[in-house]
């Protein structure tokens, strides 16, 4: 698992790649918490390159979400691949995290200013 980030106005777009499981969930959590610390409005995760997420990875997401809520930072997950989407549904994470079909949709909902920055050439 690797993750790159992009600052968009007062929000952070995080792009993790690969598989998130017991072996790298802590790295993922660190990347998430760093993004939450940087953001003022929202952290949006572009999950389009995540092939699989285990319960340990979902736990990292929950910790980041709780940390963000305490700081007034929203967390959204966008562009889930079909398998990951199924895992979210089976684990009921789609009920406790804000999930979006696309990154643009997530930014539009959570931080329109960040969307403008995302769309800027």
């Amino acid at each position, binding site marked *: 698992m690797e993750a790159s980030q992009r600052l968009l106005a007062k929000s952070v777009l995080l792009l993790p790649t690969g598989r998130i499981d017991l072996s790298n969930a802590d790295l993922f959590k660190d990347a998430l918490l760093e993004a939450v610390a940087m953001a003022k409005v929202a952290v949006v995760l572009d999950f389009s390159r995540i092939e699989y997420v*285990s*319960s*340990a990875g979902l*736990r990292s997401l*929950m910790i980041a979400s709780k940390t963000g809520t305490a700081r007034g930072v929203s967390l959204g997950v966008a562009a889930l691949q079909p398998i990951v989407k199924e*895992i979210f549904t*089976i*684990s009921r994470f789609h009920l406790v995290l804000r999930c979006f079909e696309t990154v643009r949709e997530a930014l539009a909902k959570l931080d329109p200013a960040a969307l403008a920055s995302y769309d800027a050439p």
Partner: protein
Amino acid sequence: MRVIFWGTRGSLPTPLSARSVRQKVVAALVKGAHRGLDTPEKAAAFCSEELSFAESATFGGNSSCVQIDTGGPEYLLCDLGSGAREFAVGAIARHGPAAPQTYHILVSHVHWDHIMGFPFFVPAFIPGNRIRIYSCHAKLEQAIRGQNAAPCFPVEFGALGAQIEFIRLEPGRPYPIGGATVTGKAQRHGGDSYAYRIEKDGKSIVYTTDSEHKMDDVAAIQAFAGFLQRADLVIFDSMYSLADTLSLKEDWGHSSNVIGVELCQMAEARHLCLFHHEPIFDDARIEKILEETIRLEEITRVGRPLRISSAYDGLVIEV
């Protein structure tokens, strides 16, 4: 070994209401209309072949009690939830009240839903029966005796006719019990709880209920997977969704279907049986969880397939 489930519901007995039964009957009648179901055989075949389990039956309502039939003359049970009464009625009917029997009972912990069947456990009333109650839990005897005492129950423990013994087990140490070898393991649960691995003739069953697993505690997860290693059957507390165990119900001491699949995959277990169902879930919901868990196993499979089932009162699994 043969596993017989007498009580599968978590937290408290959950009987099917008249309204729920009526809904099932109405739905089945509508589905079977104009199908010529004019004999019991045709109706039974229709129920088996065209109705889902949730439509034609129920997962049941008794709290935890599982019988492990090791093939020997003595009985072996896991937990004394309300399902223990059903088990006892069957045992008495089989042998008659005058034939003394020996009952070995492993108790996971002493929360009420796991011991509430004991005051109604008929063999305890009958002189000549021998009842050996085992647990790694320190307060086993205190809890069982306290339950059979005023003001909770009118029959005092001392008035019970059977010979009743309490045996404290040490976690990690194998014991010969009821024709099998039993090893306990501590679990994360308020007030303590213990899993039991039951082995006989190269087959193994793990009874693990009322246990929460923190997937960021790698050492604990690996140790638990070691306890489940290549088990033929894992009876697993899957009471909540994973999301619930990490949010609203974190530290409530229970686990999820997702964790069950992951642990069994790590352990290369053969069969995961979802157990200790949430009382607020109806049959359709439990069946849906079973279907989703089967799907989860398919999309996350790494080695050999893991069979998935969901426990119901009356289920029998051959191991």
